[in-house]
């Protein structure tokens, strides 16, 4: 296996890890505030559709991105209404949101475009184009550093850089600001936060909305950057892999980055089986790679490799007075 293959493999790892990373950080905000969210998948799907549809209609990918974020936040607020205001079961609400998105996207796509549940292919300004970083072309011929810079670091869409930037920002917000401290506290011991005179409901809604925004960007990336248009069920379980990555990362931002990069690498390897055969000498079935993130998460959850302890008040609706 030559150097260029490694670069190509890592390049597609980054591409595939980006939506996982954004969705994983989305889930991180929500679950750190004590709201379980298995509806990441549905929110991504809704955002993927609305950003592609609006981008196709207006010709501007930025308006599309806003529409995608709007759709995702709307579903987040529905989740908030069910699980915060009406103190319903958060898991059931998440399941409902996944189905709602799966059904509505196809229904609306068929109504708007009549192309069998897809949007028209996006072109030009309706897509996020790759950005060439400064000096990428000039440096391309420098050995080792050149290809790494020109092929791996440069040449992604703006959302990829945004996603990677979200990691330190998330860390800073959660661990270095007052809002972050309160948000984490509300996921561990909401009664204490309430006693301190801070609104539990307000904080949880804030967390759920942030989750919606990040899921929205993740979905927009799928349909306007990774691919050129929406197709039915295009999130393809990525929301659940992000959930797996979140547990794998034990609800920590930097670890979320590592976990999603690892799962992104599995995804990249699925299309480059020749590489695996060349490296370890045996043929690995594609199904094995596809199932690996889930198997690893189950092992982590079982506590065989370190213990994954979720936020203590996760999944519990907060009742002010009993």
């Amino acid at each position, binding site marked *: 296996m030559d150097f260029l293959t490694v670069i190509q493999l890592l390049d597609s790892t980054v591409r595939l890890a980006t939506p996982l990373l954004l969705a994983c950080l989305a889930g991180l905000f929500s679950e750190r505030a004590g709201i379980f969210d298995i509806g990441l998948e549905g929110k991504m799907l809704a955002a993927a559709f609305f950003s592609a549809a609006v981008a196709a209609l207006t010709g501007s990918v930025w308006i599309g991105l806003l529409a995608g974020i709007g759709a995702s936040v709307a579903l987040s607020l529905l989740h908030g209404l069910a699980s915060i205001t009406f103190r319903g079961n958060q898991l059931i609400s998440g*399941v409902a949101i996944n189905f709602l998105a799966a059904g509505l996207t196809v229904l609306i796509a068929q109504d708007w475009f009549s192309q069998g549940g897809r949007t028209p292919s996006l072109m030009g300004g309706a897509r996020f184009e790759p950005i060439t970083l400064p000096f990428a072309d000039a440096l391309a011929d420098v050995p080792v550093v050149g290809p790494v810079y020109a092929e791996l670091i440069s040449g992604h869409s703006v959302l990829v850089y945004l996603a990677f930037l979200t990691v330190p920002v998330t860390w800073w917000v959660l661990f270095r600001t007052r809002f972050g401290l309160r948000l984490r506290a509300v996921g561990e011991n909401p009664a204490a936060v309430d006693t301190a005179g801070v609104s539990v409901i307000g904080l949880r809604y804030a967390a759920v909305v942030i989750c919606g925004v990040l899921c929205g960007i993740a979905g927009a990336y799928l349909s306007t950057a990774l691919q050129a248009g929406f197709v039915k069920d295009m999130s393809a379980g990525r929301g659940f892999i992000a959930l797996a990555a979140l547990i794998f990362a034990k609800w920590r931002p930097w670890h979320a980055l590592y976990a999603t990069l690892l799962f992104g690498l599995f995804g990249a390897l699925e299309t480059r089986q020749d590489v695996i055969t060349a490296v370890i000498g045996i043929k690995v079935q594609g199904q094995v790679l596809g199932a690996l993130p889930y198997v690893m998460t189950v092992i982590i959850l079982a506590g065989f490799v370190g213990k994954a302890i979720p936020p203590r008040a996760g999944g519990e609706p907060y009742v002010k007075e009993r």
Partner: protein
Amino acid sequence: MDVVPKWAEVILVPLISLMLAAILSALVILAIGEDPVAAVNLMITGALGSTYGWGYTLYYATNFLFTGLAVSVAFHAGLFNIGGEGQAMLGGLGVALACLLVPWPHWTIALLAATVAAGLFGAAWAAIPAFLQARRGSHIVITTIMFNFIAAAVLNYVLVNLMRPAGSMDPATARFPEAVHLPTLHDILGVVGIEFSKSAPANVTFLIAILACVLVWLLLWRTWLGYEIRSYGKSESAAKYAGISPFAITMIAMLISGGLAGMMAINNVMGEAERLVLNAVEGAGFIGIAVALMGRNHPFGVFLAAILFGFLYQGGAELALWTSIPRELIVVIQALIILFTGALDNMVRMPLERLFLMIRRGNA
């Protein structure tokens, strides 16, 4: 004493939730430029207007009966089994192995063996998440979701690499032998002289599903085990104090739940397709969640809800055939039902509680 009387709890709350879901669905149909009344009429004639329609409605209902019961049993133990989909996939594998490996002389014996195999495979797939929940404290919802994906990968591997007949490109097993062909409702009702559509897939498994309903009811409300399952689901600490083992109840409830989900395969794999294909379950495992919520986790409620969803599925197929409304409309309706009967339950219940309190005060 509860604020809301029992009859309101059992009938009124689900009915209001269902109506809310129906109103929103009608608005969705209006929004995509179709006529909701015409759509409902078409669904009713398509699903209930002929024995052909009934045959499909009951066929779908059979699937949902098994998966709905599966979710209910786990719910009674306070466990949310979201893995019915994967358990039903594995059940299909059990049925395929039972039907293909042994040359059965008659369908009755084959059905018995296939039922056992389906139940065992489904239960085995639920056993690992159950064990991890009971012993290692890993959340059953997450592990069962993960196991759905792992099941899909396992099935894909087995069908593509191991069970595909030589020379076939299709990721599916060979056709089951003629001897394990299950009698359809056409064959059964023909004996007593009732005309029933020949091409509809409803078969003898529907009767087994009804039997399963009765058995689950007996188990939950007429045996010690059922009592222990329900008390564990109501209050874990009280159950522990009464000497009920959380480990045993978690395992048993999940094994029964997984077994029931797996048994769905005798309907769709053995009764209808007569071979195992990749996408045999078609989301029925997830519909089980909606059916269980709608049916208030009671076998009779699950029976009614399964028939309702069978009707929705067949009606939705007819809609997709004759109008420009895609089949996904049913997914939306299903989502709304899960939302209103499950997650937004309190939204319906709180105003009702207030209403009944007012009435009571008025009487006093």
